């Protein structure tokens, strides 16, 4: 790291040599890329609520896994995949039916999470489980988890690649996709599976409760700025990675500034996403001003009325 020494005011000592930091940066980057890409479809399909529900449902899975001594990642995945399947089975096309189905599964899961977290707190006599599951554990991940996360990430992105065009078409119009012979329910189910995997990965990174931030945040910023789907996807993935890495760095450095007790990584990542979202709003506003200004320079009606 040639630049590391000269950048030392930015990077507190040990950042580049710490094993937990390496794992955190790798896992965070993979989770951010997958969440950003899947998130673009979550936003344009109007399923942000389903994504949020899945992350809350994952809370029950993560806390159950903690209770039986397994990695929380597997708990997140098991519960999210099952929940996605249930949502698809009882989910109805009408938004209202879909919201209701999601809400009912969500309520039941949060109840379970409350039970499991309570039991976990009693049995371990600490609140470690609660903080770990709800707000993430990126600095305490076992090194072997990077491979698992990478495999899951590839699986999730492979689903998106295969479903790319039918997903877009059915996001534009369910009826049109249906009429063109797209197996709309199968496509919807495949997408929900990719969503469940993405949410599980970001739950490990920044916690079950906050995983929606990594899913919807970068995608929402990218959709403000990009005109084409491919560009929106690349931008969302890049924004996610930047937020994850900058957030991790701030959290690491804060242990020095704050004298031992640093800020939680999840807080730092979500804060970066929020700042970027705000900044993108400013960019969009400036663009609109410039467009209005240039339209004002050419006062004539821009568009011919006649069709033929």
């Amino acid at each position, binding site marked *: 790291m040639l630049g590391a020494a000269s950048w030392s005011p930015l990077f507190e000592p040990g950042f580049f040599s710490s094993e937990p930091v390496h794992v955190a940066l790798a896992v965070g980057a993979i989770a951010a890329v997958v969440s950003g890409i899947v998130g673009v479809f979550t936003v344009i399909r109007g399923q942000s609520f389903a994504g949020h529900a899945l992350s809350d449902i994952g809370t029950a899975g993560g806390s159950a896994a903690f209770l039986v001594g397994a990695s929380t990642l597997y708990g997140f995945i098991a519960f999210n995949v099952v929940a996605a399947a249930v949502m698809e089975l009882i989910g109805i096309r009408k938004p209202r039916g879909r919201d209701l189905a999601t809400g009912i599964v969500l309520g039941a899961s949060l109840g379970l999470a409350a039970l499991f977290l309570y039991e976990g707190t009693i049995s371990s006599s600490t609140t470690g489980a609660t903080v770990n599951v709800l707000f993430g554990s990126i600095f305490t991940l076992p090194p072997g988890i990077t491979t698992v996360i990478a495999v899951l990430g590839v699986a999730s992105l492979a689903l998106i690649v295969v479903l790319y*065009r*039918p997903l877009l*078409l059915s996001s*534009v119009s369910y009826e049109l*996709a249906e*009429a063109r012979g797209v197996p709309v329910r199968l496509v919807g189910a495949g997408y929900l599976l990719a969503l469940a995997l993405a949410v599980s990965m970001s739950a490990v990174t920044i916690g079950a409760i906050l995983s929606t931030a990594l899913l919807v945040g970068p995608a929402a910023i990218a959709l403000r700025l990009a005109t084409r789907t491919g560009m929106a996807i690349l931008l969302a993935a890049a924004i996610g990675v930047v937020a994850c890495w900058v957030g991790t760095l701030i959290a690491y450095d804060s242990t020095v500034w704050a004298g031992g007790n640093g800020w939680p990584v999840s807080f730092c990542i979500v804060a970066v996403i929020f700042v970027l979202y705000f900044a993108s709003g400013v960019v969009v506003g400036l663009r609109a001003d410039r467009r209005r200004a240039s339209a004002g320079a050419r006062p004539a009606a821009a568009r011919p009325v006649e069709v*033929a």
Partner: protein
Amino acid sequence: MIVKTDAVASIGDPPLAHGTAVGDADPVLRVTDVSVSLGGRRVLDRVSFSVEAGGFCGLIGSNGAGKTTLLRVILGLIAPSGGRIVVAGGTRSRRNPQIGYVPQKIALEADMPLRARDLVGLGLDGHRFGFSKPSPTRRSAVDEILDAVGATEFADARIGNLSGGEQQRVMIAMALISRPKLLLLDEPLANLDIRSAAEVVELLARIAAEQHIAILLSAHDMNPLLPVMDHVVYLADGRAASGTTDQVVRTDTLSRLYGHHVEVIHVQGRVLVVSGAEHQAHHDHDPSPRGP
């Protein structure tokens, strides 16, 4: 350019010989005695009509009359409980490339990351898995169809930033790019201002004539279609009256269809269908006015 069917095919009397076009080629769409029941309710009752290549047919009826159901039956998304549908010589099937479809109420949000030309490209191959491969052939096909609907100017604009009329043109291009013989449009004029609606209708009439395709367009108000429509299918309570506009939009025909007296009034080139005030006391039907 329509096939002569009996004017009120499915009302009362047993249907006469349908679509007995004298010396004409086979129609692109032939619907014969189609009935549909959904959830125990009879939504369509022995509906018959046909549309020829180059023909412009309006599917007129109020909300709930069965317009969307009829279009979905033709698309092969709903199985009829009786009757027969023939599209371009073949029986109906899903993913029939002979049919182009513009669904109703497309909500294209401003943040949808698609340009007009991307949407039209999806019309070509959006049902296939994976990514599309850009090629000069694909690009020129998209350019050509965008030009045909007068959308070249906003081809590279984000679809969600276009006006309702512009979006409708792009949706029509999306339906046309697979070169269908039959174009189905579900309420394409709803939510359009009068001028945009007139432009869309004019565009469709030109496409029907130039590309020699059959158009079936549903609407709750027939007036914007009067200048171009050569055939009407008028739906009320699942039953249909079909024929030329002059044959169908008449006091006697529509009164028989509704089962109570309605008056067809021509005012300054517009048509109003209203329940006859002096007759409504004899009928227990809803006397609400139909049409504009």
